[in-house]
Every structure is written in structure tokens, then in C-alpha cells.
């Protein structure tokens, strides 16, 4: 039985410190918490994105771990390459971890991720999902939800933000028959810590998709980052689930969802939405949950 991790028993040492992310950045919190579990022996691969931009500012280096910036499309390829290298060097318990944003995972990096999972090598891939390309200036990605205003899907008179739905990246990763896949949210940090622990222990590729609000891109106060990440699970717009041994499992089944409108209106990217669109978002959520409850129990 693995010991359950919580705020009291995690490693007090910091492995990600002095970075230049915006105040209240959800993505840097996810990275920091993950590194508390993975430890300083993990080798990190990060593509061009916020987390690479804020930590590798010459001559600053915000990571205690060995870390490398990879080409945008090849986070998982570099991570598995490092894993093979560590094995060749005869390292005990080699641990290679890829951290990519939503664009680097669902759009640009999807082929290398798919290939790496297919090869079945032991590595961990953590997708920090802030629902747009934040580093380059808030462009729509494959994981941008319906209705969200970004610079490439602005809220105009005719079209109100993003017209497509979020890609089911967790299901796509799980469909490879991956050893371990999970979704998490920084609003539920203990749940995330334990999922990273499980990914570390598992023997094979592991994928964790974590929801990380971005105050700059979403237009909300920096102090409510964690609140929003908790609310999004309580409203049913995001879910906490795991895929293990070929089975899906929901970690949290809310009996009553919190009202979606209050949650959305706290973010500037959704402030333009009309009642009809909010109802549409609720219908999409209900459809998704109906399917999940039916298939995953």
C-alpha cells in the first residue's frame, strides 16, 4: 500500500523556484507540486511554452532538476530518448518526465506523444492545460472550450468566441492502452499529488492531464486561480478520472452541479456569453457526464 500524500507529508524542498511566471500562475503551481513528488532526480523535458520561457532565462535556471527545452513537437520523443539514455548509463530507477501545455500536447505534440505511448517506454507525461496558447499571446488550441474568447477566436457580433468543443485528450491517451492515465485539477492538489505518485510507481507510460487556470489569458484575478480550478470540477465542466488496467474510473461524482453561469462570468474570456450559450454549455456538460457515468461508472 502506497502512503497517501498530502500537504503535511510532501517533501519540503523546492525544486522549482525563482521562476518568472505571472503572479497566480496555475501552471507553475502544477509543476511545483509535481516536482515535490517526482524529486530532484527526475529529468525534465519542456517544449517551447510558458514553463520553458519563465524558467530558463539566461543566466537564471529555476529548476533544481536536469531540464532541457525540446522542439515544440517532440516533448514525448525527447523524454523517451532521455529515458533510454539513462537506462544505457545504468542509472537506478531512471525517471524521465515531459511537461507540456495544452497546445504542445493536443495539437503540435500529439504525434510524438502517441508514438511514445505506443512504444510502451517508461516515462511520465504531464499536460498542463490552460486552454489556449498562452505563451504566444492567447491563441486558440485544440483544448480551448466552447465559447472562450481568445485572440484568434474573438468574441464578435456574429461569432461569440470558440465554436468548437474541447478535445478529449484524456480519452485519446487512454485509447492507446496506456499503463496509467489520469485527469486532475490544481483545485484538488492532494488528488493530483497522489496521481503523480501513481504515475511514478507504474511500469510503463503514464499521462496526467491537469487543469491549470491562467490569470493573464482568462482574465481573472490572480488570487482566484485555485478557486476556479476547484469550481470547474464542482460545476462538472472538468472531471477527475483515472484509467488503470484497462478500466476507466471516476474519482469524483458530484450529485448536484454548481451553477455554470457564476463560474463562467468570473472569467473575462466567457463574459460575453448569452443565456442561450450558457445553456448550450450546460447541455454539452450533461451529455458528457451521461456518457461518462454510463461507460465508466
Amino acid at each position, binding site marked *: 500500500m502506497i502512503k497517501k500524500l498530502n500537504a503535511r507529508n510532501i517533501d519540503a524542498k523546492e525544486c522549482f523556484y525563482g521562476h518568472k511566471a*505571472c503572479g497566480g500562475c496555475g501552471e507553475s503551481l502544477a509543476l511545483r507540486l509535481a516536482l515535490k513528488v517526482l524529486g530532484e532526480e527526475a529529468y525534465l523535458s519542456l517544449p517551447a511554452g510558458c514553463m520553458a520561457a519563465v524558467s530558463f532565462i539566461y543566466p537564471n*535556471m*529555476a529548476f533544481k532538476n536536469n531540464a532541457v527545452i525540446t522542439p515544440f513537437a517532440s516533448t514525448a520523443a525527447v523524454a523517451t530518448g532521455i529515458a533510454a539514455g539513462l537506462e544505457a548509463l545504468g542509472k537506478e530507477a531512471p525517471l524521465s518526465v515531459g511537461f507540456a501545455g495544452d497546445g504542445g500536447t493536443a495539437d503540435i505534440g500529439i504525434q510524438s506523444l502517441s508514438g511514445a505511448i505506443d512504444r510502451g517506454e517508461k516515462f511520465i507525461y504531464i499536460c498542463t492545460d490552460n486552454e489556449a496558447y498562452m505563451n504566444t499571446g492567447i491563441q486558440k488550441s485544440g483544448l480551448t472550450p466552447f465559447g472562450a474568447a481568445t485572440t484568434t477566436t474573438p468574441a464578435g457580433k456574429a461569432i461569440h468566441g470558440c465554436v468548437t468543443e474541447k478535445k478529449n485528450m484524456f480519452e485519446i491517451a487512454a485509447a492507446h492502452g496506456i499503463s496509467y492515465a489520469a485527469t486532475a485539477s490544481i483545485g484538488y492538489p492532494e488528488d493530483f499529488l497522489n496521481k503523480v505518485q501513481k504515475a511514478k510507481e507504474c511500469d510503463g507510460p503514464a499521462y496526467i492531464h491537469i487543469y491549470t487556470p491562467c490569470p493573464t489569458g482568462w482574465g481573472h484575478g490572480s488570487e482566484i486561480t485555485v478557486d476556479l480550478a476547484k469550481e470547474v470540477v464542482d460545476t462538472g465542466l472538468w472531471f477527475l478520472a483515472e484509467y488503470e488496467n484497462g478500466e476507466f474510473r471516476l474519482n469524483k461524482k458530484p450529485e448536484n452541479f454548481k451553477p455554470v453561469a457564476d463560474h463562467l462570468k468570473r472569467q473575462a474570456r466567457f463574459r460575453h456569453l448569452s443565456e442561450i450559450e450558457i445553456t448550450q454549455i450546460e447541455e454539452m456538460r450533461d451529455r458528457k457526464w451521461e456518457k461518462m457515468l454510463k461507460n465508466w461508472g
Partner: protein
Amino acid sequence: MKDFKMSPRPLWKSLSDVPMGSSCSSFHICDTNAAWRVFRPVMDYSLCIGCHQCYLLCPDGAIHKEDAKVFRIDYDFCKGCGICANQCKPGAISMVKEDQV
């Protein structure tokens, strides 16, 4: 008081001390983030119940755990985002404007 800087500022006496090439040693931190703040979190230890939430949820890791109930804020790297004050249930952390500290 304990020095909370995780990595002391490297001393550069000559140009040869500056890392060369496209890589540098880990935790090589040369400057602070202190001027980012508008509001500064101030902790009232009499109200702290030691729930660990501020330490857990700080995106910068700027709140250090000294003991099970003693948490200290590293003002050199705190960006004043306010997550700690917002998450603190007993209200032990308040955000004070920098010029009023």
C-alpha cells in the same frame, strides 16, 4: 532569522564566472522577483492553525515550512498574487499595500 533564499545569489567577480554556452548549472538564480508585488501578504501567527494550505498552493513556493506550524514568506520571490490570503480559512494572511507596510 533564517535565510529563506533557496539559492544564494551567485557572485560574479569576473566575466569568466558568468555561465558560458547554452546551458547552466541547476538552481542558478541571480535576481529576485520582489518588485513584482503591489500587495504583500502579511501573516498573523496568532490566527494560524497550521493547515498547510498557503504552503501547498503558493505557485512560487515562496512560503516555506519551517516547522509543522511555522510558515515564513520569502519576500524576495513572493509575487503578491494573493492565492495564500484567499485560501487561508482562518484569515491569518492579509494583503497589505506595499507602501503601507
